[in-house]
């Protein structure tokens, strides 16, 4: 396997492409939520004494 592991598995059809899409979307939304939380925290001056 020369390609990156995830890509190689995708090309082999294991796991299905729709599953990879669903997994990536879950990560993307989770991290987007965290980013929003971080920006909001900074905006409110969080962490400063």
């Amino acid at each position: 396997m020369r390609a990156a592991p995830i890509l190689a598995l995708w090309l082999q059809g294991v796991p299905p492409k729709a599953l990879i899409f669903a997994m990536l979307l879950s990560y993307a939304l989770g991290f987007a939520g965290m980013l929003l939380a971080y920006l909001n925290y900074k905006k409110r001056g969080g962490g400063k004494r």
Partner: protein
Amino acid sequence: MVELTKLDWFWIVAFLALMIGCGIVFYRLGKRSQADFFLAGRGLPWWLPASSVFATHTATDTPMWVTGVIYEHGLRGIWFVTLFSAWCAVSAIVSARIFRRSLAYSQAEFQSLRFGELGSELMRGWMTGWAVFLNMFILGWVGMAMGKVSQLVFGWPTWWGLVIFSSVCAIYVLAAGYWGVIITDFQQGVIAFASIVLTSIWGIVAAGGPGRIVERLHEMNQSWRLDVFHFTGTTGGEFPVAWFVTMLLFALLGGVGMATTIDWYAEAQRIQSAKTVRDASYGIWAGTALILIRDSLWAICILGFFTLAPNIASRSEYEIGWFKIGFEALPAGMVGFFFATILAIHFSTISSHLNLGAMYATRDLYQHYINPRASEQRLVWVGRISTLLLLLGSFVMGSMMTEITKWLIFALWLMAAGVWLPNLLQVVWWRFNAWGYLSSWIANLGMSWLVVWVLPAYGVIPQLADYQQFWLLMALGALVWLPVNILTPPEKMEHLVKFYVMTRPVGAWGPVRREAERLGLLPPAEARDSSHGLVRRRWTPEAANRWSREDWIAAVLSAAGYLLIIVGGTLSLIGSALGYVTLALGVAASALMYWVIDPKLRAVSADYEQKQKQYLERLEGITRWERAE
């Protein structure tokens, strides 16, 4: 395609009119405030959340899933279904009480109460994004199952069934929010339960009755299918003892924590919508008990279906066995009622997840991060827009899901494995902090990929059984979150004291409790009065707010009741004398659980209702906009 008579169409149209009518009738209640749109004003008696738990977890794909495992495994297949529900046995006594006291709308909001500072915010943001995804995903998944059923009945392309029926359901969710969801869930629950009983009995009779089903299985040399504990070995095969023990621990201990299964998100909303702690506890207990009875009936019906058609090799064919029984065995005129039942179980799940996903988007995303000063009116509208966006997103997700249900269940289960223990620790250990919890979630994402696909594909590790993956993921996760948790400081004591006083969590909270007592927020713990005997029956609110022996007795009886009811119920339906005895023991254990815990729950609720009253008065204060209209 199925031939439908005028009477069949009458049932279908009448059902749709009833559901949309509920949206219109409860429109005014739903639009009063955010608390109404998402929690029905937190004033529901226990039987409404109970029927909603049952209806929500009876989805269009559920009969397919149950049929699949029973056809493949015989009666031992009930464990594949039941053990995913059994956590409610303990949760009803333990975590439901803690979560209800927190008054958090969602589990994401609970993170802000349990933890503090940046870590809690990141955790809340993460969980919000994850929950929005999860609800959209379930909507797509269940919607696609409806598409397949519609294809069977009407010969439509699958996406028609997905789009048409989810959209009709969205009408009453958009109009009345959670009020619409809970009121229709009650009706859908009654219709679904009655129809499942009727269709299953009809199917059992069509197979010659329980006696004939048993005889046929003996004749076919398939007697093992009647054994609910037919293990394939200690660690190997399709149903090893190790799997059973893992799942039992996963479910029962998981009930102490929160979010230990993907189901928790829906239960959390039902717990918060109940009017008291007592109603919340009984709501999820009774709703899940109905699920167990449903599973017993389905199991015997599918066993009968197996005796009639034992040689179906394709899973996708035998999975629709229960639907086939309904459409082929029921008389003309009742087929429409059966289809209305399928719509009922479909709508109950779709409506719940539309409203639940919109709650996270509104409460935890919009109100918390974007517009904290939004009026109640605006929040209701944001709730409606979020509902619509989730509906559209579910069409995209559903259109991608054709043959991947098995993979997705597997993936979600694995995603839960690495955070199972942290989910417990956030409730039972004061020293567990936001960074430990967040790192467990992030680590589990990568590790689940490695353990399931990447490392076996490269031959680094063998392909493991799912229960082995669970333990490995839990251990690997601990290698990350445990050092992170120890190397980062604990949450601030004043924050923990506030959380403790409000929710009274169970477990290792000694330093926090002592600080709360030192500050005068809680009276010092009294020594147990031996005059009460083994089980105390008279409680003061303050004594009832503390965890005691009665809680653990009730939790054990509750779990025993569930397990005995599912085994006894299933075996009784095939006429087994052992089944009748087991079922009677299950009912007795449940009744004893009620006798032990009810006085305590009543005392907790009496105290809680006082606080609730103040909360509702404040809520009324901020909903004046409607009166000003």
